[in-house]
């Protein structure tokens, strides 16, 4: 018998050797299939998730499918917010399903959901259960352990958190060493403190602040990971520990406001830390710098004749509504031509780093056809950009990897906005 249809069956039963009543019916002669039927709708898992604080809205989904075309993961795989509900309705155990870890909490589904099914709350709530049960992807577990031990996900020595300062080329006040009241407390963040490309941005920031005469300081080794992505990845306890520790540290010093490098910190400090007793004025660095443009513009000495496109960070844009400040800065830089990718602002495509995705690339590789950042890089190339500008510390490293992975090296550069500003101001460190 020929084989048509064999790629369309769920499971094949076939005994290689079978002789029955003298008849040789080995192999395909005894081949049978298993049924591909939904036998039950068990509500147990759905009930378990909807009874979690934050998990309630999963039960509201009415399968309209509006989330499907905007979900960045659905576009490259079989995961999708609507499908999560269906899986759970079918009794599939989300707590042990890879889908639990694929959501990047980018919030694009919630933006369009008519029933406000809130994956930004559902996923962390469900992940928290998995984490409590000790069911964590190994690479994420390492990040949790590192962060708990060292205050940064990379597992670097806390003592070296401010080492980048040495090569900034400008003086940087480190509060624990020279405590004094300042206007701005700059919370640098883990990636700008440790990651080689993050450090580039940190140094650029220091130079720009210095040039602008900002009265600021950093926390040095007392600074700890903000914990927002840790929380979204399900380790709420660790987040709380970090929040309490950071708040205690902030409260030791005198400052007017906190400026952060990254959108995740921005989200944590602005929206979550107040619940833990730490309410401060928080600005993303683009928001801090945008009003200072008149001053900045006077300092630009170099034209950057590039076509630039901007990638909206989910946690600055969709989560916190800031789309304009980064664009204002970019447009002010002489020479830059800003082009938009089709998916931008409210509908910006996710880089894949949010919600713990930053630390799950190895895990998710088996469940997606293409990394989200790879796809985004292709979009940037398609609109003719030479520079992909970003303002989230996760993104420089993700996108630079993707530029290489998609074979676009030499065609597209990835730059933090602060690096571009620094360069336009004639920084000695040029591209």
């Amino acid at each position: 018998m020929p084989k048509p249809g064999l790629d369309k069956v769920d499971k094949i039963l076939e005994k290689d050797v079978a002789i029955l009543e003298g008849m040789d019916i080995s192999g395909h002669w005894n081949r049978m299939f298993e049924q591909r039927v939904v036998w039950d709708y068990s509500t147990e898992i759905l009930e378990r998730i909807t009874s979690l604080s934050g998990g309630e809205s999963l039960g509201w989904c009415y399968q309209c499918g509006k989330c499907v075309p905007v979900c960045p993961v659905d576009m490259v795989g079989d995961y999708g917010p609507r499908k999560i509900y269906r899986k759970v309705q079918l009794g599939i155990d989300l707590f042990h399903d890879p889908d639990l870890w694929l959501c990047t909490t980018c919030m694009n589904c919630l933006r369009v959901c008519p029933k406000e099914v809130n994956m930004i709350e559902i996923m962390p709530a469900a992940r928290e259960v998995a984490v409590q049960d000790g069911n964590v992807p190994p690479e994420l577990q390492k990040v949790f352990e590192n962060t708990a031990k060292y205050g940064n996900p990379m597992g670097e020595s806390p003592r070296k958190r401010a080492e980048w300062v040495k090569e900034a080329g400008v003086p940087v006040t480190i509060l624990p060493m020279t405590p004094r009241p300042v206007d701005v407390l700059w919370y640098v963040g883990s990636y700008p403190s440790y990651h080689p490309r993050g450090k580039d941005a940190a140094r650029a920031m220091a130079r720009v602040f210095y040039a602008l005469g900002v009265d600021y300081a950093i926390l040095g080794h007392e600074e700890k990971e903000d914990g927002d992505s840790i929380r979204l990845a399900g380790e709420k306890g660790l987040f709380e520990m970090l929040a309490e520790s950071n708040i205690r540290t902030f409260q030791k010093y005198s400052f007017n406001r906190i400026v952060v490098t990254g959108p995740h910190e921005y989200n944590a400090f602005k929206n979550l830390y107040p619940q833990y007793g730490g309410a401060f004025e928080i600005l993303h660095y683009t928001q801090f710098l945008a009003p200072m443009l008149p001053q900045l513009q006077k300092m630009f000495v170099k034209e950057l004749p590039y076509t630039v496109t901007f990638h909206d960070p989910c946690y600055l844009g969709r989560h916190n509504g800031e789309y304009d400040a980064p664009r204002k800065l970019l447009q002010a830089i002489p020479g830059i031509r800003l082009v938009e990718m089709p998916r931008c602002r409210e509908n910006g495509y996710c880089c894949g780093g949010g919600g713990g995705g930053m630390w799950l690339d190895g895990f998710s590789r088996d469940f997606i056809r293409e990394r989200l950042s790879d796809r985004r890089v292709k979009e940037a190339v398609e609109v003719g950009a030479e520079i992909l500008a970003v303002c989230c510390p996760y993104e420089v490293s993700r996108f630079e990897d993707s530029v290489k992975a998609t074979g676009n090296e030499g065609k597209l550069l990835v730059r933090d906005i602060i690096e571009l500003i620094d360069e336009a101001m004639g920084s000695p460190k040029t591209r």
Partner: protein
Amino acid sequence: MALHAPPKLERYADIPYEEKERLFQEVKADPRFPDYLYGCYECGICVAACPSARFYDFSPRKIAQTLAREDVELFFYQLNEDVWNCSQCFSCNRCPRGNSPGGLITIMREVAVRNGLRSAKEALEGYSRVIYKIMATGTQVSPDMIQADAFPDWGPVAKETADNLELWRKALPPETMHTTSTAWEVSEQTLTELYLIWHMTGVMDMIKEVDEGLHMILLDVMEELLEERGYALAE
């Protein structure tokens, strides 16, 4: 369990869109088409009743929807891969919209055959013996076709019948059934009429598209009888 597997459309990426469109139009032009397709609102009644859907990733609903939405790419995929999974039981005829997905598949298969699609040829490989029987003898599965080596999975009885075929056939009271190479005895006049029908309705051309060898053998058999009976085959 994958919630939806994307169809493997890329398998047919090389076929020009125009060709897919042409075949789609050929299906739509069939006079039966309007009786078989009104529209689909995804109630799933047809799939629930479908035997093939129980085991294959096959869906009469998707066939109806694809045609209704005029999704030419998906149509072409189905034309090559899905239509041959259908069991043609017509359980899907319970459609509340009055569609007949099974009927649509009948039309699609005819188009696949008429156009000699490779997939149709492959699907019908191993089947030409049956086509030969029906075309040439007017009866379909003759007793001599159940040979033990081709039906070991039917158990010892297949072998026993094959071994005793002639004797057992003689032990059948109805005299029309004593034959072994046809299911029952068919008169020559009857066969002549059947051959004329095949020729006059273009069925021979369809056979030629999927199996040229079979076509030639059949022509030989038929020409002889028709000439004997005084019919010349029109060219």
